[in-house]
């Protein structure tokens, strides 16, 4: 165990309208066993003691599953170590390092304060079609519908998305394709999701477009930044499903 002394370059912005800027802070004696957010806690505690306003950032479960923590670290969402920021540990850094900390940036994620952004747009994509339209109580016995293990596992792989938005924040075009495609793939792969497949794909893609996300140019930066290893295979599948859904809508085929 060792202690680190770091220089932080942090984006500070008092409100959505205010002019933001990078400010420099010293983080002293940070245990290398601490998580990145615990490092910020330590810095914040010091700031409060000095009567200054702490750095605001989103976080909740701190075990890498809720998807609330964000932060772009040295230009890469979640720091690019295949984990969420809350699971990034300080042993990944060296004594004397300078660390740039910025919010998840995208026009579709308006900034609220400091490092906190509004990711409601992702919820809106789900509301458009990211569900199976079943009523509570009407479900048949769970084992009435055998599902190939391979299919179920593939659906799970897509469903493991935590909705953090790192894909958008890392994308050079701020596209939300990895998020949208993962949710669509999860449901489209399963027989339960099949009846609404075309409807879902069209609704989700159109909603995604309407929300001001950029367009995918197959850079695969999203896959590299994703803390849950969601594959760009889902994007390929969404492209395919979208073509079929359009064909279905226009010509009544593949429906």
């Amino acid at each position, binding site marked *: 165990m060792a202690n680190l002394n770091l220089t932080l370059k942090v984006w500070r912005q008092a409100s959505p309208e205010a002019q933001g800027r990078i400010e420099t802070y010293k983080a002293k004696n940070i245990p290398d066993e601490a998580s990145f957010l615990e490092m910020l806690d330590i810095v914040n505690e010091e700031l409060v003691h000095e009567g200054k306003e702490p750095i605001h950032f989103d976080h909740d479960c*701190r075990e890498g*599953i809720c998807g609330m923590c964000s932060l772009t670290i040295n230009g890469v969402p979640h720091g690019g170590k295949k984990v969420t920021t809350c699971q990034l540990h300080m042993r990944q850094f060296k004594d004397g390092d300078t660390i740039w900390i910025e919010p998840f940036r995208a026009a579709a994620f308006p900034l609220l304060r400091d490092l906190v952004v509004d990711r409601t747009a992702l919820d809106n994509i789900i509301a458009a079609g990211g569900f199976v339209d079943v009523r*509570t109580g009407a479900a048949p016995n769970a084992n009435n519908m055998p599902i190939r*293990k391979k299919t179920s596992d593939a659906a799970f792989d897509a*469903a493991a998305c935590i909705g953090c938005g790192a894909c958008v924040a890392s994308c050079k075009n701020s596209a939300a394709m990895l998020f949208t495609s993962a949710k669509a793939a999860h449901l489209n792969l399963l027989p339960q999701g099949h009846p609404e497949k075309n409807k879902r794909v069209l609704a989700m893609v159109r909603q995604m477009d309407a929300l001001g996300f950029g367009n995918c140019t197959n850079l695969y930066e999203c896959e590299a930044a994703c803390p849950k290893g969601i594959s760009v295979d889902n994007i390929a599948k969404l492209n395919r499903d979208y073509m079929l859904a359009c064909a279905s809508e226009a010509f009544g085929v593949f429906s």
Partner: protein
Amino acid sequence: MNEIKFPVSDYMPDSCIPDGPIAEKWTKYKREAKLINPNNRRKYTVLIVGSGLAGGSAAATLAELGYNVKCFCYQDSPRRAHSIAAQGGVNAAHNYQNDGDSVYRLFYDTVKGGDFRAREANVYRLAEVSCNIINQCVAQGVPFGREYGGLLDNRSFGGSQLKRTFYSRGQTGQQLLLGCYQAMEKEIGKGHIEMHPRTEMMDLVVVDGHAKGIVVRDMVTGEIKSYAGDTVLLATGGYGRVFFLSTNAMGCNVGAACACWKKGAYFANPCFTQIHPTCIPVKGDYQSKLTLMSESLRNDGRIWVPKSREVAAKIRKGEMKPSDVAENDRDYYLERKYPSFGNLAPRDISSRAAKEACDDERGVANTGRGVFLDFKDAINRMGKEWIDGQYGNLFEMYEEITDVDPHEQPMMIYPASHYTMGGLWVDYNLMSSIPGLHVLGEANFSDHGANRLGASALMQGLSDGYFVIPATLPTYLTTQKPGSITTAAPEFKEAEDEVKARIQKMMDVKGTKTPDEIHRELGKLVWDDVGMGRTKESLMHAIEKIPAIREEFWTNVRVVGSTEGMNQELEKAWRVAAFLDFAEVLCYDALNREESCGAHFRLEHQLADGEAKRDDANFAYVACWEYKGTGELPVLHKEPLTFDTVHLAIRSYK
């Protein structure tokens, strides 16, 4: 030391349990329950606080039925509620494994697991609807683990001798919550739910004795606002963060429940707090939370400490690798003490056994507070690949946090605050002692008695939200004229003003300690004195110290920033203040309950072999505490528990 004499009241609201044989109560209830015409449902506004499994499933289902739903959560999206972190699984009595499961057996295991401190009728209902939950979730597209034949797989969990737990790798809570969130988003998209994320409930508004609204703080603008409705559903989770370090999310808090308690809802059995046996041990003072390693790991991991103190000391100092400890020098204490359940003994028992081993100075981890969870045998038996298929993500997570590969060296674990069985008292309709205030999921005193079995929390949250509340809500709503109360009622203004004044008071202290520092202080006190082993002395010590910490808060806290706009320090301070108001009743309840049962272990009350010694003659009741003012003794109301179906017996897992 002074004795505390709790004021006791004879009054107890009716728990509204239908009569008849236990297996027919719920059917009978539904047959006779009041209904509301679909066209009239939209006239009723239902305010739901919390969007986890209980709140989210209730919101989705009630909106589907046609009610006008408004849902509030403090996170930025309903998908982030802490139910998402549940790892292991969800129980159901489907008996797909043909190993003898049935509704009755799930009911029996749950009552026994809860050490006979739960309400039989509620638990039976829970077991009854458990299968519907699985059916519903599968229909929603939740990708549960499957066998090669395409049918659902099950694993076993603590406290049961069969496989009834459905799972999605180590992310069952996430998948169930996403199912529920998607159902919610579907209704949000249709305009049936009005969703308010980043909104924290600050107070309950009671008009003429009925819960008719809430006061909230918009966490983005800082605005204090009110919402009126025909009923309020509280699904705000537990109060595990009273210990500061816990497996709960950073935002989990008792604020909303505490506000309701202050407005007259009884707090039931607050001393029943579950300490989960398998968490990653504490590292240092800066630590903000503890990470759970799913109980499912105990299916294949073996728990041990060195037999001798010398070996343990060497491991602590790093002079010896755990994997080098000879088989003969290892004490697999759970297998030794509880041969029939072994490593799958219930949580309370496993946690206490770990504590005993560490108290005996045979603990590992640099603090001496840790035991091993070893997968060596399972890896030798089933192979690395199979283990990774079962627990891959948990192994990765462990390595991420500790920098140790659990394939090579055993995991180190230690108990941590995890779940709270206690909560606001509710009747069979899930309505609290304030008419119109319904409490769901972990926030209510629930169906788990003195100890919750693994994979039962997800079951309870979803049962309350998907199946129970939709059936019981009309019982209350039909007695109300829809939309009769609006935010124009003077009670709303009054509650808003109180909230604003309390916030202002906090801001004006301008002391020297941060809210987190005070929270840590409280947490340490409560953990040491009201944690896994409680004595009269420790409880009296805590009761004496808590007011001092509260006093410190109100005279020396420093809340920087302003009341307008986003202010995370203010959010923290508000939550800490609620924990400070609540912490005493936790101690009072633990002091009052002069017995050991489930997770509540009073060192004075144990059997010769160190097991919990229950006192059914005097304590087979739900202790319901009525608020009488901060710093004042609360009044105790007792709901007697009767066990007609399951006979009271000493819980044995040997």
